């Protein structure tokens, strides 16, 4: 029974639970709903809930755990003798999985009967040819043991699925019986349903935590694998980045970090003055009419996908900077450069700076301005000497948020900054960033045992920690500041 079928059965049972629960409640009071504790519908929902929720919960847990459990139990069957020279346990396992998948597909589209798939060992080569003819490659150098393991893999999966289906349906039936039998006029069906609903709500809000945990653990785990193969001091303090898929790579992070920070710095140099002055003009000078047109237009900049900025950098800004600045000044020949990426990224984060600063400047109490005007100060003097100092912590928070956005930005730098890892001061040289290297190490053919691939997780973790730090700092500052005037 497939998962979809099991789901269907559970849902049908739940619908039955609703109908029977409701009907039983009404029958017990001879059709007079006034004698029931809750509205009749709640008795129905109670039935449906007890039928579906525990069963579906078990099913979801199984679907998540299945790969791990089966992997482990088959993995134990791999003997050391089976691992060829220069290979590893995980490579053998991935072979096993591939063969099992190939068999599954062959059975699914009718090339093989299920019993043929089990008896594969006898005529391995013949079957392999048939599979290859169908576009299912199971490799020519797969030893017999792997095929045996693949069959074990399939059997365990099938057995596991059957057990799971049995347990889920039994659970659904048990819940169904329990709920229907428990139905009586005094039974507080509404409270019971609401308890269940609340549990569901809590579960949904926990997903946020699960996501963070997923991010942290998936990266921590692979990063730990990486540091087993590569020294962490060389990663954090190495100054050369030259990955080599035959091994022996230099994976020093500093050139990437330098590129990231340099580009973000240029982006902030563009965005902070423009964003800040725009915010000041919008909140202190602009007429409501001008504001109602210009503010949404600036915010459009924040809604444009980053790939659009990337293309803009690649096609327009890069060549322009090269032809009018870099080449005449003799600073570089490359269209993709720190300047290109920084400039375009600066445009992208203008709205982050401007709308946050705008909110913060608006939150400064009017009485401060009135006091300053009363002393005879002009608007600009008031802004420079009263409003901005009062809003400064909030503005710093906004800038930090913008910085974290710039550091984590990917598409603009992938298309605009280039791929050469170097530490240089010339902004018209192509440099590269952490995010660019995450993309280049994790796309294409990847081998999750090699440090050249795993380094992407270490880079990801570094990026995560860096941006998280900035965000938390910014949030703390902004929150502190808000309290000040509330």
């Amino acid at each position, binding site marked *: 029974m497939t998962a979809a079928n099991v789901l269907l059965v559970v849902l049908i049972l739940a619908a039955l639970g609703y109908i029977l629960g409701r009907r039983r409640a009404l029958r017990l009071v001879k059709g007079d709903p006034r004698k029931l504790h809750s509205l009749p519908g709640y008795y129905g929902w109670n039935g449906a809930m007890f039928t579906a929720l525990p069963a579906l919960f078990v099913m979801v847990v199984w679907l998540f755990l299945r790969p791990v459990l089966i992997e482990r139990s088959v993995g134990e069957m791999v003997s050391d003798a089976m691992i060829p020279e220069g290979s590893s346990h995980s490579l053998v396992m991935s072979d096993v999985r591939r063969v099992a998948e190939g068999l599954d597909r062959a059975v699914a589209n009718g090339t093989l009967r299920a019993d043929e798939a089990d008896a594969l060992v006898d005529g391995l080569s013949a079957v392999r040819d048939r599979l290859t003819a169908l576009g299912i490659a199971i490799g020519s150098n797969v030893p017999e043991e792997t095929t045996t393991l693949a069959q074990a893999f399939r059997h365990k999966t099938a057995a596991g699925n059957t057990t799971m289906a049995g347990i889920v349906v039994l659970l659904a039936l048990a819940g169904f019986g329990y709920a229907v039998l428990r139905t009586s006029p005094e039974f507080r069906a509404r409270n019971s349903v609401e308890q269940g609903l609340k549990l569901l709500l809590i579960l949904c809000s926990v997903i946020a935590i699960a996501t963070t945990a997923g991010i942290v653990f*998936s990266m921590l785990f692979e990063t730990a694998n990486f540091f087993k193969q590569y020294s962490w001091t060389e990663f954090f303090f190495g100054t050369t980045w030259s990955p080599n898929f035959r091994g022996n790579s230099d994976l020093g992070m500093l050139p990437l970090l330098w590129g990231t920070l340099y580009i973000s710095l240029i982006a902030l140099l563009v965005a902070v003055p423009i964003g800040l002055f725009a915010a000041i003009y919008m909140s202190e000078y602009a007429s409501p009419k001008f504001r109602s047109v210009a503010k949404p237009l600036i915010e459009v900049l924040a809604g444009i996908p980053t790939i659009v900025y990337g293309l803009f950098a690649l096609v327009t800004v890069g060549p322009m900077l090269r032809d009018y600045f870099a080449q005449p000044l003799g600073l570089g020949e490359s269209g993709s450069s720190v300047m290109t990426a920084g400039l375009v990224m600066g*445009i992208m984060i203008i709205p982050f700076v401007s709308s946050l600063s705008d909110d913060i400047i608006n939150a400064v109490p009017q009485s401060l301005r009135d006091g300053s005007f009363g002393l005879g100060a002009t608007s600009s003097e008031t802004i420079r000497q009263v409003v901005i100092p009062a809003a400064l912590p909030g503005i710093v928070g906004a800038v930090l948020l913008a910085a974290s956005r710039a550091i984590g930005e990917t598409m603009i730098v*992938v298309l605009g900054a280039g791929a050469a890892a170097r530490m240089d001061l010339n902004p018209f040289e192509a440099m590269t960033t952490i995010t660019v290297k995450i993309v280049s190490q994790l796309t294409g053919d990847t081998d999750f045992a090699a440090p050249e691939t795993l380094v992407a997780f270490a880079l990801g973790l570094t990026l*995560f920690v860096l941006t998280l730090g900035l965000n938390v700092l910014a949030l703390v500052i902004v929150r502190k500041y808000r309290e000040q005037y509330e």
Partner: protein
Amino acid sequence: MTDLSTNANAGQPKASLLAADARTMRRNKAEARFRAYGLGAVIVALLALAMLLISIFGNGLSAFTQTRVHLPVTIAEAIVDKKGTRDPEVMKKVTTIGYGKLIKAAMVDLIAKEGIVIEGLSDKDAEAIISKEAAATLRDEVLANPDLIGQTVTFDLLANGRIDGYFKGRVSMESAELDSNVSPAQLHLADALKDKGYLSKTFNLDFITAPDASDQRPEAAGLGVAILGSVYMMLVVLLLAPPIGVAASIYLEEFAPKNKFTDLIEVNIANLAAVPSIVFGILGLAIFINFAGLPQSAPIVGGLVLTLMTLPRVIIPARAALKAVPPSIRDAALGVGASKMQSVFHHVLPLAAPGILTGLIIGLAQALGETAPLLLIGMVAFVREYPGAPFDGLFDPASALPVQVYNWTQRADPAFVERASGAIIVLLAFLVVMNTLAIILRRRFERRW
């Protein structure tokens, strides 16, 4: 009395109140300067927006038209159906190379018929002004309709990318001299054909519906698979993000006790909204592909990753919308005997719905334009097959609109820049529609309490 008047005379201001003194003038100038800086900043930001849009539209609008050659092709039985069976199964043995010969013959005939004489133009060059994709188009047509065999039918065939570029101003006679892929003679031929009405630029529906094409045929590349992939991913997001997001915000806003745990959830959500999108890609790769064993390049994985990314962006505005419903509504519901749950689901939620929906649409629009996480879960693969119908189709490989843009920027032929910009116009059109919807919703249904 006299004292006073003399004092008044003595203390007479050096300057009139009406004429500004030097210091005031300096201050006023500083004021004007400051104001100009502010206006300048706004104008610079708007100019940047304008430049961005002009650049994209300038490069991309031409992707929606395509140069086509209206070529009368005689479908010779001797080539496509030697045995004369008219059986598509038998005719399938003739590859596109055979159909290429038909096109070549048709081109040579046409040049002879119209009396076009161009120096240094070989038959092979003449054929090459038609796209390499044309033979496949012709083959599909003939296989679908074997009755055409033996007749002379006029087909609208794609012109080669360079010829198309010539009519869009990308290729000139001078650049053709240096280009090994196109010669000035071919351009002269194209001009001649255009004069005789055999060649014209028409609206390019294939750009929106056709699948991607290989490096050598930018003229045939389309967005069909990418749009379908994006739609599938949005389907997954739409199925998962709203219920989970709304449930989470209801819990946090209406039920959660103030304690360490709910504080943790709140800080978490605020931070998740600011985590770089590429980190979600790493999560998707590690959890959904490596751990749970879902297929690479599949819209289901993309949809799940985008759902996780969208959730905080749905929860934050949804909570604001719930918070904006005044407590009196809740009190009134509780006062007439509703339970807490009933007051929320029957009264607060419907009143907050427009705000929640607005946030949801904006979150979806952001998810639609997201590229970086999709690169990591293998959506960059070259996919020419349309994915199947949902839900099985969710597990088929597909591309996505923003990723297709990235993909095209990585190709050598400059014609792909036009394609990429055109794809962005399609993407922006989707975003404009979604955001307009959000604005309309907000304008029509938003209540101020």
